[in-house]
C-alpha cells in the first residue's frame, strides 16, 4: 500500500510577477505546488485516510493518552455556521457564542469543583502553562518569589517542560514503593521555594493518591499551591472532584475526559479551573452574565496574566465539549468513569502480562517482563488493534500502559486481550519481524532522525 506524494503526481509553477498587481520588488518570482483536480484530491486523501488507524477502526488503548470514541452529533453541533464568527465582533453581536462559553465555564467548574474557569488554553499542555503562570502570578502578587515546582517522577513530560517554560526549577519527586507519592519524600521536597506541586490523580499507573488530603496539607502548609493535571480526570468523574480534594488549580484535557476528537494530534483544548483566590489571575477575557442578567459579556480578571492564545482558544473543540457534557449529564459522566474502571480491570484480568501496581482505576501499567514492550506492541498491530503506550512510565519495567476506556464492549476487550496474549507469547523472530500485516513494515526511526528529510523538496533527486 503506497500513495504517491501530491508533488509526485503534479507540480505546477506560476509566474507570480506576471499575475500580480503589485510591484515586482514586493513579490516572489514564482510559486511551485501541486495543482490536482478535485477527483484527484478526493482520492488522494481517501486513500491516505484508509492507511490510518483511528478510534473508529478499533480499540486504541493508549494509557494516559486516553483515546475514546467521539459521538458524531458533536461534530454537527460544532459545524453550525452561525457559530463560526470572527473573534473581533462586539460582545453585543456575539451573544450566542458568549452564552455557550459561559455555560461551558459553569459545567467545567462544577465538574472540577473549581470556582472559576478559563476556556482559552488550546491544549492540555497550554493549560498546564496557564495554570502554572497563574500560580506564579499569585505568588508574585503576594510578594512571594518562589522558584521551584515539585513533580512526581511518574508525571507526564509536559509537567516538567511546562514548569521550565514558566521559568521554574523542577524538583523531581521519586515514587513510593506502592507507586504513589511518598509522603515523607514530599515533606522533604517542599518548602519556602515551592511554588506548586503538580499531581495527576489517579496517577499515571492508574493508582488513586489515597493520601491526597495529607499531600494537600503539606503543600499548603509550605505556602505552595496544588496543581491537578486533568489527564486522568475521566477516571474520577462522579466520584470525586479535584477542588474537593484540596487542589487549587487544574486543567481539563477535553479529548481525554469529554471525548472530543484528537484529530491525529490536535486540536485539543485545555481549560483551566482555579479556586477563588486565583480567579483574578486567569487569562483575559473570561465570560460572565451581565449585571442585568439579560446577556453575557467578556471581562478582564483584575490581575490577569494576559493571554495564552491569540483569541479564545480552540472554539470548535470547546463546542464539542459542551455538547458531550450536555449529552451525558452527571449521571452519564459518572457511568463513563465507572465503566472505564471496570473495563480496565476486566482487561487486566484477561491478559497474561503482570500488572505490578494495583488497585488501579481506569488504566494499568502491565509489564512485558523480559520481552521488549515496543516489540510486543508492534506485534499487536498484526492482530488488528492499536497497542498501549509503551515503556512509560519508567517505574514499571517494559511498561505497557493500557487504558481501554469506557467505550469498549466485552467482545472488543476480549479481542484486545487476545492480541496482548498472542503477541506476548510470540517468538522473538515474530516480534522482530512485526508488524507484517500493516501498510508499512517496521519503520527505522533512528535512521529517519539521523538523516532528517522533512519535505518533498528534501526528497528531490532521490
Amino acid at each position: 500500500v503506497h500513495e504517491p506524494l501530491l508533488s509526485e503526481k503534479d507540480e505546477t509553477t506560476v509566474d507570480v510577477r506576471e499575475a500580480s498587481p503589485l510591484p515586482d520588488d514586493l513579490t516572489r518570482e514564482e510559486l511551485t505546488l501541486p495543482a490536482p483536480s478535485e477527483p484527484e484530491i478526493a482520492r488522494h486523501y481517501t486513500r491516505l485516510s484508509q492507511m490510518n488507524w483511528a478510534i473508529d477502526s478499533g480499540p486504541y488503548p493508549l494509557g494516559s493518552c486516553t483515546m475514546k470514541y467521539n459521538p458524531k452529533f458533536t461534530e454537527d453541533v460544532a459545524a453550525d455556521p452561525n457559530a463560526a464568527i470572527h473573534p473581533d465582533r462586539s460582545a453585543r453581536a456575539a451573544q450566542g457564542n458568549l452564552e455557550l462559553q459561559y455555560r461551558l465555564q459553569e459545567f467545567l467548574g462544577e465538574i472540577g469543583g473549581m470556582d472559576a474557569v478559563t476556556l482559552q488554553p488550546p491544549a492540555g499542555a497550554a493549560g498546564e502553562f496557564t495554570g502554572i503562570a497563574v500560580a506564579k502570578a499569585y505568588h508574585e502578587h503576594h510578594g512571594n518569589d518562589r522558584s521551584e515546582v515539585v513533580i512526581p517522577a511518574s508525571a507526564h513530560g509536559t509537567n516538567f517542560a511546562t514548569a521550565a517554560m514558566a521559568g521554574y526549577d523542577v524538583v523531581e519527586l521519586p515514587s513510593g514503593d506502592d507507586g504513589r507519592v511518598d509522603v515523607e519524600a514530599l515533606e522533604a521536597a517542599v518548602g519556602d521555594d515551592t511554588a506548586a506541586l503538580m499531581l495527576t490523580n489517579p496517577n499515571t499507573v492508574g493508582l488513586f493518591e489515597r493520601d491526597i488530603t495529607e499531600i494537600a496539607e503539606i503543600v499548603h502548609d509550605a505556602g505552595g499551591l496544588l496543581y491537578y493535571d486533568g489527564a486522568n480526570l475521566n477516571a474520577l468523574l462522579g466520584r470525586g472532584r479535584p477542588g474537593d480534594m484540596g487542589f487549587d488549580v487544574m486543567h481539563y484535557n477535553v479529548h481525554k475526559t469529554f471525548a472530543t476528537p484528537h484529530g491525529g494530534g490536535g486540536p485539543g483544548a485545555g481549560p483551566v479551573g482555579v479556586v477563588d483566590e486565583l480567579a483574578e489571575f486567569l487569562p483575559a477575557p473570561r465570560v460572565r452574565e451581565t449585571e442585568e442578567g439579560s446577556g453575557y459579556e467578556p471581562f478582564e480578571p483584575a490581575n490577569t496574566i494576559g493571554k495564552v492564545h491569540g483569541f479564545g482558544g480552540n472554539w470548535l473543540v470547546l463546542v464539542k465539549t459542551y455538547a458531550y457534557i450536555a449529552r451525558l449529564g452527571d449521571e452519564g459522566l459518572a457511568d463513563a468513569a465507572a465503566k472505564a474502571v471496570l473495563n480496565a480491570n476486566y482487561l487486566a484480568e484477561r491478559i497474561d502480562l503482570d500488572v505490578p501496581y494495583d488497585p488501579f482505576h481506569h488504566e494499568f501499567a502491565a509489564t512485558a517482563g523480559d520481552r521488549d514492550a515496543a516489540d510486543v506492541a508492534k506485534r499487536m498491530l498484526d492482530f488488528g488493534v492499536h497497542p498501549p503506550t509503551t515503556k512509560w512510565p519508567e517505574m514499571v519495567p517494559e511498561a505497557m500502559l493500557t487504558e481501554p476506556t469506557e467505550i469498549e464492549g466485552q467482545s472488543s476487550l476480549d479481542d484486545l486481550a487476545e492480541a496482548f496474549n498472542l503477541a506476548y507469547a510470540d517468538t522473538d523472530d515474530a516480534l522482530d519481524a512485526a508488524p507484517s500485516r500493516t501498510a508499512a513494515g517496521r519503520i527505522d526511526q533512528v535512521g529517519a532522525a539521523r538523516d532528517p528529510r522533512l519535505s518533498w523538496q528534501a526528497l528531490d533527486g532521490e
Partner: protein
Amino acid sequence: MYKRQERDIRAECSRIFARNDDLVEFLGRGHYGHYVPSVVDHLADRAEFLTSYTQYQPEISQGFLQALFEYQSMLVELTGLPVANCSMYDAATALGEAATLADRVRSTSGDVALVPEQLREGKRAVLENYCAGADLSVETYPMADGNADIDALADRAGDDTVMVYAENPTVRGCIEERLAAVGDLAADADALFVLGSDPVSLSVLQEPASVGADVVVGEAGALGLPTAYGMGLGLFACRDDFLRQVPGRLVGAGEDAAGDRAFTLTLQTREQHIRKERATSNICTNQAWVALRAAIHAATLGPDGLVDLANDCVREAAALADRLDEVKGAAAPVHDRHHVREFAVRVDQPAAAIAGDLEAEGFAVHAIGEHLLQVCVTDLNAGRTDGLVAAFEEVI
C-alpha cells in the same frame, strides 16, 4: 447537569448560536476568513483522520503522516525555509515559541524581543507570557506610515536584542517594503529575524528566505479554517541550523523494513515526552487536523488559485479603500502602502461610535483608534462591499 438527547442538544445549540447577530463581517487584523471548499470538510472529516491520535505507531498511521509531511512541504515552498513543523496552536503562540527559540539559540547576547509598535494586542500578550518564563522582555520599535521604521529600528536593535519581529502584511494590512533591511539589521545585531505572515499572502509576497528571515510564524488557518471564533493554526518554519531546537512535531521520510519509503514523527528527542524540562517546548497536542485542512485547501486551489486569491485580496482592498475614500468624512487607506485584504480608514467622527452605527446597519468593522477604523475584505465579503459603502455613507 442532567442528561439530554442529542437531538435536544442540537436544537439548543442551534438556538444559542442564532443569538449571534447576523452581520456581514469586514474583520481581519491577522485572522482571516476565506471560502473553504466543501471538499475540505468532506475529506478532513473522514473518521480515520478526525478520530485518530498522534502517530505514535507510524506503521498504521502512514496516511496522516504523509498528509502532514505534505503540509510541511507546502510551507517550505511558501517560506523558502527548509524546515516547517506540522503545527503550533496559532500565530500568537507560534510567535511565543519563536521567542523562546531565539532565547535558546541567541541566549548569550541579550534579553530583548523587538516587536512592531503596531501589533495585535492579543498576540503581544501571548508573547509576553512566553517571554516571561525565558526572562526576555518585549519591547517595540516604531513604525512609519504603516511600515517598520527602518531608521528607528536601526537605532533600537543592538546587543541586547535576541529577536526582531516584523509582519508582512502588517496587522493593518500593509505590505512591508524594506523587509531585507529589517533582515540585515537583525543579522547585524545577531538577533533572529522572525517574520509573521500567512500562506495566502506568502503566495505572492516576497519569499521570507530571500529577505533573510530566520523563522516564519503566522496564521496558517487562513487556509482550511473558517474564522471559527479565533481558532487558529500556528505556522512555524525556520532555517536548518535550528532543526534540533524546533518546537513541536516534525514528520520525516524514512524507510520501513522492506526498504520502502515511509513516514514517521522524527527528532522526538526535542520533545517533552522524552526531554522533559529540557524540551524545546511543552507542546504535545497541536493542531494536526487543522494542518490537514490547510493542506487540502491549498491542494484545491493549487498555485494558480493561491496566487489568484492573494491577488484578489490586494485588488479588492485597494478598490474598497478607494470607494471609502470618496465617502465624505472618511479617508482610506490611511497608510500610503500596498495592502493585502485590509487597510485603516480615518474618520472625522469617533471611530467607536461609527463602528457601532455600522453594526446596527449589519456590518462589522474594527475600531482601532479614536478616529481609526480598519476594514478587511476577502472573497467571502467582496460581494457585500456595496452595502458597506452605503452604510458608511449612511452613518458618517
